[in-house]
């Protein structure tokens, strides 16, 4: 792949949540208010004027306090949200590691959930069959694979989720604060897998509260605050500026 090619581009992106100033959750109430012409809405901009360009193969970090818009930014790139203003362009297959085990069903076995979770990510049954052994192996589930997921410990669930989500041939990896999966041994293993992706030249976008992780893994970073970019540049500079500000 061409190193100079842009993988992700956010052009003047804004995301608006439209919150009714009073929350009306019943149709009956809404109808009455509408008749009285008393429906008002408040706009809340979760993101505003975001401009980011990420090159192929780059590892890019997002930092900032809670509610700054980091996860919203990731979800824009993962197509979960569509921007209210501006434009998001993403070139390549995206593997969103946002929340593991999204769509796991407690009554289904680990095996059945692998296929279900795979389908949620857009894979066919056949494609999942090819990956199946690898996933079970990596998640270290052994015979538990034939038992309903409701009997799993949270660590086992996380391991299975991570194993399914990362067994992909993606161009872009989106990671939301997930390097804290399972025990120390598994954490090391998952870290290695992510390093593997980076070595293969996969573009990585990372949200973390650990400045250490950002410093170690990222080439560049952006500091988000109240939905706006406060600073963007080399990750060590951004991390330092952020820490000085605390």
């Amino acid at each position, binding site marked *: 792949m061409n190193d100079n090619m842009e993988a992700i581009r956010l052009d003047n992106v804004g995301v608006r949540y439209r919150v009714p100033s009073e929350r009306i959750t019943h149709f009956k109430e809404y109808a009455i208010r509408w008749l009285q012409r008393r429906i008002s809405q408040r706009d809340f901009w979760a993101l505003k004027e975001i401009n980011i360009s990420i090159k192929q193969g780059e590892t890019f970090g997002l930092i900032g306090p809670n509610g700054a818009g980091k996860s919203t930014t990731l979800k*824009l790139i993962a197509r979960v949200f*569509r921007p209210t203003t501006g434009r998001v362009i993403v070139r390549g297959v995206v593997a969103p590691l946002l929340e593991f085990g999204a*769509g796991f*069903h407690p*009554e*289904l076995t680990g095996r059945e959930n692998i*296929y279900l979770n795979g389908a949620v990510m*857009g894979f066919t*049954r056949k494609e999942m069959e090819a990956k199946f052994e690898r996933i079970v192996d990596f998640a270290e589930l052994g015979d538990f694979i034939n038992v309903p997921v409701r009997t799993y410990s949270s660590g086992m669930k996380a391991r299975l989720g991570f194993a399914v989500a990362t067994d992909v041939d993606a161009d872009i990896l989106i990671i939301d604060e997930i390097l804290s999966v399972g025990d120390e041994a598994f954490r090391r293993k998952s870290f290695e897998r992510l390093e593997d992706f980076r070595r293969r030249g996969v573009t990585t976008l990372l949200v973390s509260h650990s400045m250490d992780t950002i410093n170690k893994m990222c080439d560049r970073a952006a500091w988000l605050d109240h939905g706006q970019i406060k600073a963007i540049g080399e990750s060590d500079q951004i991390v330092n500026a952020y820490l000085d500000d605390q």
Partner: protein
Amino acid sequence: MENSSLTPVYDSSKQANPALDELREILKYRHLVSQMVRRDIVTRYKRSFLGIAWTMLNPLATSIILVLVFSNVFGVSSPGYPVYILGGFIAWNFFSQTTNAAMVNLVWGGDLLRRIYIPRTIFAVSSIGTGLVNLALALVPLLAIVIVLGIPLTPALLFLPVPIVCLALFSLGIGLFLSSLAIYFTDVAEMYQIILMAWFYLSPIIYTDELLPEQLLASIKIFNPMYHLINLFRKPILLGQIPEISEILISSAWALVSILIGWVVFTRRADEFSYRV
């Protein structure tokens, strides 16, 4: 990956037509539809003793009760009456269950939409899939009764896919329309139960046309699409006849109107749903 023309490009500003885009996406995610149908069926029966037999026993038991009650109340004594009721009941069940499931699955299972990208119509479409499986299972006791009562099985049964497709499209349209309301208002689901009850009694399920006053029957024929859809489904089984062209056209027209309106209304708003669920 070497060939950059194969690299998928997502551009948020390129969305010419949400309705068509969604159609393309749901076709791409058809494996997810089948996995979700599988999940629905498997989880429903996993911890139950009789398992999948419930799908067949349930409408059967209900119809036996209805037949016992109504052949006494209305004095209907035609030999085909049990088939009339069970046939109508199966078609109605399909409609009421799938429309409810579309709404409930989106509202309660929709947090998936906030976590990962999947086509938003997936919940409604897979409820139709689950409904179709249940309908196929319910046909077993229906055909058993047909045989027991000595009603001849005719080639007209091969026509059944047509009314089933009409029912599916009609239900999907209504399900999508309801879903787009239910996202915003929590009482839509409750209101719909009341509407369903009235709708049930305004549809020819437990009574036959002859029992209705002429004027009421005329209005039902105009305003209640389920009148036509149920009859289209029942006729080949009960009478061994392929419905007339005019009957087929009316049902297909209702199905098309419903799916078009439902799909367009839903997809126009769909980008907002991941914020709202």
